[in-house]
């Protein structure tokens, strides 16, 4: 008792200043930016469970689809990532999906992530104004970083000078791949709607100038926005971010994916080569460690942008060595 009193007497001032400092940082965290609430300490602590990216000799199928690739994931052990509503940056939202199962494999050349989650409705179109797509995204810290509670690295869209690489799979991009011109057009949603755009050159209603004006007078296409571009040839968008509101499409797209919706559940496989030439991409080394985080959008609940189901922690992932290593 006497000893502890002595301790308090000796270190009292230091303890008091520590307490004051921590409360000061708490206040600082509360006011990070307008519309952004501060983050708690545990969000800066990565999850304990480690995802093992199993080395599997994937027999790469001619058509990359879930059914052909599913077998390769059989021996991989997955982790369950808990999801919750996004409650820090405006607009808040999400909360309809509680969790997703993630499995990962690599074959020394390509890395594959399989994400499975329950969603009673398939929303694979975003043409009507009130319709939103189902989507999933994986996020990786850019560069070789060790994430510890001492070294704050935001698990939510990264931070200034701490960029992240994001892979955003979109259900409607997958539907786009299956149609002529590789972009579902307004007729897909409104088959009986009148429009002046008869694309048949032998029709008496064909108007060449009108048809060729589509690209010029579609702002998104003229500005070469990847979301508006027909014939993207992929279902996953490769992006970077440095905090809320900074999400930017990469000039060079490297990621692809495939999906299957069955019995009220989405299975999405996202794949990319372990190494790329792009300095804005995350790189994977067999035997090495990385971190990932994820978010799921439920189109039926009007999820889009920050209105999403997120994991609030980084998850470590370790790549198994390849057979010859």
């Amino acid at each position, binding site marked *: 008792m006497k000893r502890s009193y002595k301790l308090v007497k000796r270190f009292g001032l230091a303890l008091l200043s520590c307490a004051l400092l921590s409360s000061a940082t708490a206040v600082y965290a509360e006011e990070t930016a307008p519309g952004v609430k501060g983050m708690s300490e545990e969000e800066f602590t990565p999850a304990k469970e480690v995802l093992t990216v199993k080395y599997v000799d994937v027999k790469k199928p001619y058509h990359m689809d879930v059914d052909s690739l599913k077998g390769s994931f059989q021996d991989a052990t997955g982790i369950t990532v808990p999801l919750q509503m996004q409650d820090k940056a405006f607009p808040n939202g999400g909360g309809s999906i509680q969790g997703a199962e993630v499995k990962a494999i690599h074959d020394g050349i390509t890395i594959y992530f399989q994400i499975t989650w329950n969603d009673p409705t398939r929303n694979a179109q*975003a043409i009507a*104004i009130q319709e939103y797509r189902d989507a999933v995204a994986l996020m990786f810290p850019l560069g070789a970083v060790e994430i510890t509670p001492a070294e704050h690295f935001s698990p939510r869209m990264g931070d200034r000078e701490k960029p992240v690489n994001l892979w955003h799979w979109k259900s409607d991009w997958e539907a786009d791949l299956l149609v002529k011109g590789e972009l579902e057009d307004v007729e897909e949603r409104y088959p009986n709607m*009148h429009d002046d755009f008869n694309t048949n050159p032998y029709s008496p209603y064909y108007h060449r100038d009108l048809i060729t004006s589509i690209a010029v007078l579609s702002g998104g296409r003229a500005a070469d926005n990847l*979301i508006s571009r027909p014939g993207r040839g992929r279902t996953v968008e490769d992006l970077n971010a440095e905090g809320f*509101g900074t999400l930017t499409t990469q000039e060079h797209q490297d990621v692809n994916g495939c999906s299957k919706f069955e019995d009220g559940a989405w299975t999405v496989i996202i794949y990319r080569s372990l190494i790329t030439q792009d300095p804005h991409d995350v790189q994977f080394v067999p035997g090495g460690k990385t971190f990932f985080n994820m978010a799921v959008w439920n189109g039926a609940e009007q999820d889009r942008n920050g209105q999403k189901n997120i994991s609030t922690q980084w998850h470590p992932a370790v790549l198994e060595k390849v057979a010859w290593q």
Partner: protein
Amino acid sequence: MTLVHNWHLGRRMEYPYFESRPKRQFAAVFNINRCIACQTCTMACKSAWTYNKGQEFMWWNNVETKPYGGYPQSWDVKTLRLIDSDNNVWYTDDKDEKLSPYGVYEGDTIFETAARKNLNQWAVGYVPEDKEWRAPNFGEDVAVSKKQDEFSTLPEHSRWFFYLQRLCNHCTYPGCLAACPRKAIYKRKEDGIVLIDQKRCRGYRKCVEQCPYKKPMYRGLTRISEKCIACYPRIEGKDPLTEGRPMETRCMAACVGQIRLQGFLDDNPKNPVTWLIRHAKVALPLYPQFGTEPNIYYIPPRWAPRSYLKQMFGPGVDEAIDKFMVPSRELLAVMSLFRMTQSIIFEYAIEQGPKVFETVIHGKKFEMFNDTVIGYGEDGKEIVRTTVEEPIHVRDPKHYNSI
């Protein structure tokens, strides 16, 4: 949130960004009393900007019949409901010419309601569904009618409707700009025009949701949103017709009823737009209580019930209608400038002319002088000259029947 001054509300209000007014603000005055709803403005806009694929439902400019019409349907009623039942409470005993010309709004704006209700987004709003956009002139010419009245007489008709001409208000505090989570919407410093960056937009539709006037629109073809661009190439003087001078937008220039005058709101009291809005106070903002400080101003229709008009244009309605019904010498001259030129008028001057007419309107003496009004361009050069009395040209009897 930061505190910014909104002179429509006569007070400071909460907004996510700091107050940053443009050098001059794109603005227009619409005289509702003269509109015949011919939709020439609507078609001028359509044929210039929204005739393309995926824009079939898009009308950046539209004219709707009030009170029943609305594009998208019931947009105003739905947004008014979202703010509160006390959305039209004003304190008008104390006014300041510069800071609070209409008095002080005591209710909540769309931004303040979202903050008070802890909605965790910047403003209240809703996304209208496709069916709500589908019939842009729904309710056309449908009047409100009290069946017991045989005749309607001024000051308020018992059987009434009026036309409301709408385009993007290029607000000083845009709801769309506040709502965009990735700052893809920006307001230009040089003229206050609000634009959506077509490269940065990702089609989240937060702007569609939180613009109270519902003027950003989602295009299914490109999967991103678009909005009125205030014909900015014309505003920048890119059209060869005006030889580099700023030119009014397509919808303004096409106005058959001569109800529109477009220009810039600035500090020059001899700028016709500034004079009509800030000095004569004959033109009023649309739903100022939303809190976005919209920049299209309306001369309210003199026959509609004042309570309805006050909800729509704020407490300045009585003064505006009184001034419009018995116009002053200067007001009559400035109103003669409407649609006399496509070039934007930056300043006006009046040369006095003889008295040509005298009468009594609603017990007030009215004198009409045939003054000459001159409009000057940005460079100070005269671009238009007209008289209050429309000039009459009598054809030579020899050519009575010639075309």
